């Protein structure tokens, strides 16, 4: 069963998601891509749409697809049986308990364990999806994870346009180009607050580099 699911996951991304992302949406790189060649690594990105995860997975080569795990909220994605199967096996999420739900499992430990086994995590520091094309304040989870795994590089990636294509709470898909900007990886260095500021500044710089009109 495990191999069938792996094959299904590979097919889903190779045949459905990649063509949709590359042709129907269309990616435009604003600079040369800076991406991990293998694990352990964490991709951190802004979060406006369900498509974010799909685009980030599509950026990576298919041959390392089996290592990629988007970190996602268990209570949202494991609502019912089918959704749970799809999220766990096809999208390949790492389900974590949001704070305050269940104190017995520590979400940071869950992520650290995956990184220890060489996974590439997709992590949205803002937490949940924000308003279209706006970034909310970063939560502190990203700092805790970096502190726990100081040797793992964090790759900031900023995506513009997906919040227009498929915003939160809307099911109508309207294609817009997705502009992607990459940044050099950040490592945990001296202190948590320094890392937090560094990530925040990176995203501010990335956001400013996109010279496209805002959505109103």
């Amino acid at each position: 069963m495990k191999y069938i699911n792996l094959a299904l996951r590979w097919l889903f991304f190779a045949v459905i998601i990649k063509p949709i992302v590359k042709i129907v949406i269309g990616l435009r790189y604003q600079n040369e891509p800076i991406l991990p060649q293998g694990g352990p690594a964490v991709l951190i990105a802004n979060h406006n749409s369900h498509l974010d995860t799909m685009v980030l997975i599509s950026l990576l080569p298919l041959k390392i697809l089996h290592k990629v795990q988007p970190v996602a909220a268990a209570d949202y994605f494991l609502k019912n049986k089918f959704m749970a199967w799809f999220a766990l096996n096809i999208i390949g999420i790492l389900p974590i308990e949001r704070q305050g739900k269940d104190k017995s499992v520590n979400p940071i430990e869950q992520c650290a364990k995956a990184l220890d086994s060489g996974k590439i995590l997709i992590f949205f520091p803002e937490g949940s999806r924000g308003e279209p094309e706006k970034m909310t304040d970063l939560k502190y989870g990203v700092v805790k994870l970096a502190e726990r795994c100081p040797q793992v590089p964090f790759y900031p990636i900023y995506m513009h346009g997906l919040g227009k294509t498929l915003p939160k709470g809307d099911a109508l898909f309207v294609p817009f180009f997705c502009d992607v900007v990459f940044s050099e990886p950040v490592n945990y260095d001296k202190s948590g607050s320094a890392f937090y500021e560094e990530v925040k500044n990176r995203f501010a710089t990335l956001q400013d580099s996109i010279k496209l009109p805002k959505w109103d």
Partner: protein
Amino acid sequence: MLFDFESMRTVTQVFMFLLAGLSIATLVGLALSLFNKKKDYTELKQRINSWWIMIGIFGLALLMGPLVTVLLFAILSFVALKEYFSMTPTRLVDRNVLFWAYLTIPLQYYWVATGWYGMFIIFIPVYTFLFIPFRMVLAGETKNYLRAVGNIHWGLMLTVFTLSHLAYLVMLPSEGEYQSLTMSGDGAALLLFLVVLTQLNDVAQYIWGKILGTTPIAPTISPNKTREGLIGGVITTGILAMILAGLLTPMIWWQGLLVGLGIGIAGFIGDVSLSAIKRDIGIKDSGQLIPGHGGILDRLDSLTFTAPLFFHVMRYFYF
């Protein structure tokens, strides 16, 4: 015999010449960049690359017949419209409207493929023009309404209506005859004539501007465009059109010359009008923002003006 040059259709012969010319240009470009490492030939290389893509698309169209050509232009329109909507300001409430705007593409190209000329010519300027505001008032948002409605129409006219004329050129000689979809008429030759002249006109204006250009013609929009470049380019295009007219179109030499001059002027206006839009928005290239990588709109800007004009001259006088 794979290459029996004599028995080929004229359009294929001209296509072969183009292929040879482009291969030479590519080699010259390579040689230049090898021998002259100080100069930057990125722009030249990009132009040559986009020419190869155009030639490739055209070769496909020649081989596969009109239906594939129509499909290719539909895809081209889709990418161009997406680029347009991505770079211009749009409103969140208009998402539904933009979805309808995309849906005009399959419809418009369906009219082309079936050769329904009347519908093809009024569908966007009349029916879509009336439908879009109707759908927008249902949403009920009045802030920036005029800007939004104008923007959507402008985009549809520019990327769907004008570019679909390119596809209709291929259908012209067999207008309304559905069986033509299985065989290439000489509509392909008309398309080749227009695309080659429009693109060469861009190149000619650029080169003449580099050699003689002193007087800026639209300093606030495109500081690099000069009066000398425009005049030189238009004359060059006119002469080229005069030579090609007898080969690819029903025109005789002096008609070709007139049409060529028209293509030169219209191409210039198309180019500058898109530059004006980009100035207004505050971006230079509409495509990838890696310096010098233009988008598809940058490659098609001149064609958006030359296509409908050339098409109607052809249809009115010759078909």
